[in-house]
């Protein structure tokens, strides 16, 4: 929860980008696509908790529930 979350996502993003380029250069485009998707899913899993926390906070603050 916090700034390290954003840095973790950035690290995964950069890692996926590098892996993507590596795999494309070595001629394996499908695996490059796979790694991009995998990185995206990992980041999504991390972010889903944050967005859920945001929505719960908004619900409690604005009495929306």
């Amino acid at each position: 929860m916090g700034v390290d979350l954003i840095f973790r996502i950035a690290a995964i993003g950069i890692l996926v980008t590098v892996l993507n380029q590596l795999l494309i250069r070595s001629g394996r485009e499908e695996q490059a696509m796979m790694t991009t998707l995998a990185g995206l899913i990992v980041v999504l899993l991390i972010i889903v908790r944050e967005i859920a926390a945001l929505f719960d906070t908004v619900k409690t603050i604005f009495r929306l529930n």
Partner: protein
Amino acid sequence: MEIIQIIGVGLVSTLIMLILRKQNPEIAVLVGMAAGAFIFLLIAAKLSAVVDQLEEYAARADIRPMYFTSVLKITGIAYIAEFGAEICRDAGEEAIASKIEMAGKVIIIAMAIPIITSLLDLVLKIMP
């Protein structure tokens, strides 16, 4: 001083989004979402303190609680609809952003109808 932390987080995530935007824009959008959520969570405590204080003022001025809570709900819906619409606009999806905003407006109007009806009743009562 939360404001310093908020600006720091905002700038850092903007920079990260710029780096990631060229190769894979999906993760850039996700970083934007995470930054937005994190910044709101930073100010949530202060915001709820303000809202509780306003509620206490409304109670003291013996305004019917239904009015204040629906105004609060409308603000909440406006905020969250704007949050979603801006993220879609960031990702370049102008159409989806305007759909979200239109849906937000419809929900807000639907919530405002009880207030409008009670206002009209009041006006009719006052009219000779």
